[in-house]
């Protein structure tokens, strides 16, 4: 969808009530693209998702698959996990203790070694080319499952840097399925009605807006305006739930358990949003592209993922939420077995690792065989299409039966040539 759908033409805005429109408007017409019976089944579910995205590519050797006796190993220790016989890097001591609650796939084999094309390709599930821009996973889930709580946007993205409404992630689904991004985890601005705007004045403003929209509709395609209308109502409802953006309510012990670094704070905030009922929360951490000084950087970066990931899994488990909440921690690829001239590792889509937990995912499963040095898949690897089928399946979406419809075209929701990864599913 072109930026022209927004009055300013920009894809990223400072968040305000107005800018929440898109994410909330996605609720309208949810069922229209799905078979009604399937849509009803899906809506009954309370499945939620948290995607922790380590942008740039975490090294599998310095995390999930250390292989200390391999010629490609880094210098770090390999430590025992709570699964007998399974070892992680010493940089993941917290996750090692909860390994029995998660699954690790060590044989992801994807096709794109570049960030610029690889990130969208992975987050869209690398579908077969149908001449359309597929939605990112969060937007797909927002479309396919709708909001878990009707008063909350279905897709919230916590990220460093700027926030705003990121409509480009929605692809052909349309802007309303984009992500409401909380820049640096900050709540949307203008979420509080200013003190100098009384309840009566606010109501009068809304009435004026509705009147203006009616006039606007008279001369134009009404669907966008309807989405704005619905979304405005949702935004007003969200204002009533502003406490979920209040990180002052998070207790100090939790902050320490998750870590005070950005990723720790943001994953804790994700837990708060999941508890509140947000369907899909993505948490981004940038600067994992360790072409230079990989070992000094991994020593400092990997613990920043380890600590909050393990804390989140434990907290969701303790709260009885893990069985209905899928947690995925991954990057767009892994890092080369070879160590380059800057003591870094380059991009490696050929054989890399990711972790999944909760919501129909086996506990304590380590999936996939690699060559002895970990460089290549031994046998068949899994592409991201397999991962998308798996994610949809554990969320209760039949990725073979359910299709998108776009301008009359029936579109598979995941790569037609792939299947769910049965080994990782309950």
């Amino acid at each position, binding site marked *: 969808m072109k930026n022209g759908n927004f009055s300013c033409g920009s894809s990223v805005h400072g968040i305000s009530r107005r800018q929440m429109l898109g994410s909330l408007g996605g609720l309208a017409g949810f069922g229209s693209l799905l078979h009604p019976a399937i849509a009803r089944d899906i809506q009954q579910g309370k499945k939620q998702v948290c995607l922790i995205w380590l942008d*740039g590519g975490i090294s599998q050797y310095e995390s999930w698959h250390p292989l*200390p006796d391999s*010629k*490609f190993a*880094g*210098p*770090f*220790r390999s430590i025992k996990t709570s699964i007998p016989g399974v070892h992680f890097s010493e940089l993941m001591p917290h996750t090692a203790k909860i390994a029995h609650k998660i699954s690790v796939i060590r044989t992801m084999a994807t096709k794109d*070694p*570049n960030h610029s094309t690889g990130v969208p390709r992975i987050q869209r599930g690398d579908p077969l080319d149908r001449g359309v821009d597929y939605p990112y996973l969060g937007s797909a889930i927002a479309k396919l499952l709708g909001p878990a709580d009707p008063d909350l946007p279905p897709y919230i993205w916590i990220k*460093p*840097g700027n926030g705003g409404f990121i409509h480009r992630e929605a692809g052909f689904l349309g802007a309303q399925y984009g992500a409401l991004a909380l820049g640096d985890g900050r709540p949307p601005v203008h979420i509080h009605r200013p003190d100098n705007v009384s309840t009566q004045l606010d109501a009068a403003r809304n009435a004026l807006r509705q009147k203006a929209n009616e006039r606007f509709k008279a001369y134009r395609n009404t669907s966008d305006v309807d989405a704005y209308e619905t979304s405005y109502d949702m935004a007003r409802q969200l204002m009533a739930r502003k406490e979920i953006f209040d990180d002052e309510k998070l207790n100090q012990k939790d902050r320490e358990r998750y870590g005070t*670094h*950005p*990723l720790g704070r943001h994953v804790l905030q994700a837990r708060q949003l999941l508890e509140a009922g947000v369907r899909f929360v993505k948490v981004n*951490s*940038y*600067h*994992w*592209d*360790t*072409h*230079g*000084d990989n*070992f*000094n*950087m991994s*020593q*400092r*970066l990997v613990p*920043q993922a380890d600590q909050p990931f393990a804390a989140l899994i434990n907290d969701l488990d303790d709260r009885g939420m893990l069985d209905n909440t899928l947690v995925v921690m991954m990057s767009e690829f892994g890092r*080369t*077995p*070879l*160590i*380059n*001239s*800057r*003591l*870094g590792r*380059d*991009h*490696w*889509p*050929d054989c890399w690792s990711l972790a999944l937990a909760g919501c129909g995912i086996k506990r304590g499963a380590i999936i996939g065989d690699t*060559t002895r*040095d970990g*460089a*290549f898949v031994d046998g068949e690897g899994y592409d991201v299409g397999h991962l998308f089928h798996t994610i949809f399946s554990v969320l209760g979406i039949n990725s073979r039966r359910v299709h998108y419809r776009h301008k009359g075209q029936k579109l598979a929701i995941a790569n037609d040539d792939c299947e769910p990864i049965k080994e990782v599913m309950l």
Partner: protein
Amino acid sequence: MSVPPLDVAKAWPSRELEHGRQLFRARFSPDGRFVAAGGQDKLVHVWDLEKDEKRSLNGHRTWVSSLVFHPKEKKLFTADYQGVVCCLNYVRGDNPIWTIPEADRNNVRALAVTIEGKYLITAGDDAVIKVWETLNGKLVTKLAGHKECIFSLTLSSDGKYLVSGDLLGSIRQWSIGDWTLIRELDARLLHTRKENFIADVGGVRSLAFSGDGKLLAVGGMKEAKSNAFCPGKPTVLIFDWDSGKVTNELGIKGKSDGPFNALQFLDDGTLAGHTEILHSASELTFWKIDQPEPFHSIKNGSGYDLSLHPDKRQLLVPTYVTGGSSGNGGRGKTPENYLTNTSVLRIFSLFAKPVEKKEG
């Protein structure tokens, strides 16, 4: 045999010692007969330059991070990324004479031996300098004060002081013997932590005193652009040792994006340094320290250390060699032809290459 006059501008690679894995540290022995090196393969490799033989010594279970010779005895001290320090007989021994199993919480990044050979000094990730007896590896004392991991150690030219440098750019001068902190010098230029970084980058990667002890050269890189590629501007700060003030800042003319991991003053006051670069050729660089730009450089692969031969006419550089598969993705490589990167220990002679006599 007469020693040829030093002539850096005519320096040339006079000998190469190849090794099948990447090596990060290398040193000439005090008598110049041996070269010891360590790196990825968990072994310490010793070349006898006279006999042209190589031996490999055990003692480490992970990458070798640092090594230093005893000035008088046939002992070599080596350290690794998991905190182990070994004392090896580099002439005859196979196994360590003694081992310190936990000299640091993690990586022992730097070693030094006092000039009379009595004390071994270690420093690394836990930011605490530790002093040990070279005789038996017994702990003598600990020096606390650094707030982040320590990358480098050196001794003042008169042997009275220990100098340490850390990730944050703090340089500390310690008195050897009573082990007290004398002062702190500021090299924070070599540390970068921008608002959007998720890790500190850079640090004091190398230290070297001039022969007269009046100057301290401090190597690293400044203005790192990210904590991912970690590209920065290789930089040397020259400190006037008396005042503790920076008197000059040295850079390079050519391409390079990594830190100076090693520095070495030569007899005539020339400073030599070597840096790294991603997927390209780096350089061995020479400065007159009153001039910001080098007066000479020699193209070389990325180099991680420098050691000056006791004859003061040869420099040893452990140099990166690509195995042919560098860069992103496998690009059709298979387990059979995806090869490790390797090293060459390149010895540069710092004088004009002798003219070969024509036979007949």
